């Protein structure tokens, strides 16, 4: 990955972090789109799994800082998702919109599953409802936002060859 690609990826990364802290609270949806996870996924497919895991750890700690009771849960979830996204990039990040959408959807859903299980704040039927209803909805919204981002910024988002 050359310098230009790195800079473009960095810009996209910062833009997504910015959107996470502006557009997401502005919309205030019950099943919100997760721009931090999109930033993680789009970064992870450009780096090695170890780096993806470290980026996930950093982003997770950042997101957890606003919910001190869940500190570490988001970090664990994002570490795993970052590692897996980097490891599976050759499979998923083909030039196929549907596959990319599935990639984002599964990434967000996996993140939610790990997060809510590790957080251990809700349980029983509420956890089931969260994981089978709200998390898929949120994952779908995230996937939609990711696809829109790819379509709009396709030239900037050329993934590195595996």
């Amino acid at each position, binding site marked *: 990955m050359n310098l230009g690609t790195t800079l473009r990826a960095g810009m996209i990364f910062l833009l997504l*972090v*910015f959107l996470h*802290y*502006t*557009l*997401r*609270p*502005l*919309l*205030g949806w019950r099943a919100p789109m997760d721009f931090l996870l999109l930033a993680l996924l789009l970064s992870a497919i450009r780096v*090695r*799994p*170890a*780096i993806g*895991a*470290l980026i*996930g*750890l950093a982003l*997770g*700690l*950042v997101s*957890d*800082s*606003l*919910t*001190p*009771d869940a*500190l*570490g*849960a988001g*970090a*664990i979830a994002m*570490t*795993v998702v970052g*590692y897996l996204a980097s*490891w599976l990039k050759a499979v998923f990040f083909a030039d196929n919109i549907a596959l990319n959408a599935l990639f984002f959807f599964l990434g967000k859903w996996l993140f939610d599953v790990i997060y809510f299980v*590790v957080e251990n704040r809700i349980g029983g039927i509420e956890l089931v409802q969260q994981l089978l209803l709200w998390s898929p909805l949120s994952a779908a919204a995230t996937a939609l936002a990711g696809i829109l981002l790819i379509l709009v910024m396709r030239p900037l988002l050329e993934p590195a060859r595996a």
Partner: protein
Amino acid sequence: MARAVRAGNSRIDLIVLGAAALLALVARGLPPNLRDPVASSMRTTFLAPLVMLQERAEASRRSLLLDDTRTAIRDSVSLRAMTVASLEDENDRLRQLIGLGSRLRWGFIPAEAIHGRGVRDVTTMTLTSGSNSGARRLSPVISPEGVVGMVITVDPTMSEAMIWTHPDFRVSAMSGDGSAFGIVQAHLASATTGYLMELRGIPFRSSLKPGTLIVSSGLGGVWPRGIPVGTVLEEVKTSEGWARTYLLRPAVSPADVGAVMILRTDRVTKGFENVWTSVAAAEAAAQRIIVAGDSAARDAALAEAAARRAALDTTRRGVAPGTVVPGGLPPELLPDTLLVPEGEVLPQDTGVAAAARREAARRAAARRDSLRRDSAEQRAPRPSPTRGN
């Protein structure tokens, strides 16, 4: 070789993954008293801009959600604010009408005045009470301020009144003290003078000062005695040499007429002299107090200026301050003629007399100050003369 490198890389990746997961688990396993400082340190340092952005975004969202509600509230408040002035005016007028009603006690029919086409050219108005309520032709129509007009046509539920601006309107009137009698009619001489009245037929020997209250005399048979008609503005020079004509400021401006009272015939015969007396007397007393306060303040100011001049002269002549002089006043306040030449001894005033003079001076100063305050307060709320637009 390549497979070995890939295997090595995979091993490194797994080690890093394990380390990252371990760190995350450690963070998750931190006791609550350590979690908060860690999270707080991140929020207040490198995450501070993002936290600020999120706060702003959430505030914006709340504003957006409340925008419709706020707009509706603002519109309601604006609408109410637009009606407040008219409601206040109406409230004042109704209070006055209630006050008049309590003074009249009986024999009146309350009615709303419905204005016609415009304000400037109005000479008649429709009233919302008719013969069913007791209104009759030529019944006087009054407001809390005084004469409005008289009923000319009556329907069962409505009636039409000729107001005093009508060219045919006449009312027999007199000065408040009964020294001069005449006929009041609308002043039609000039369009630029607005709604004014004329008091005609005042005997040449009777002279009325500006501000004199003119009331109905009760001589015409329609109007009872004592209802305010207007106040004298100035004398009008006419060709009639045998009588004086005065320009009056009307007691009632046609544009301000809203709620009125139609007087019943039986009430008219009883007279109204005590209904408006207290109001007119209070206005006259207030006027006298203002004039007296002004003149007293002027006298006091002149005396004070004279005392200052005397004090300055005394200082120039070298009299030591605090020297005991006749009259008990300090030498700074004495006129030059009272200064004692050096070496000459005058009989000393007694201490009691001196104390009495000082007390009198103090009271005079206090009275002067209170008169100034009173006249200032009396001047402030006085309404400007209504000239019917």
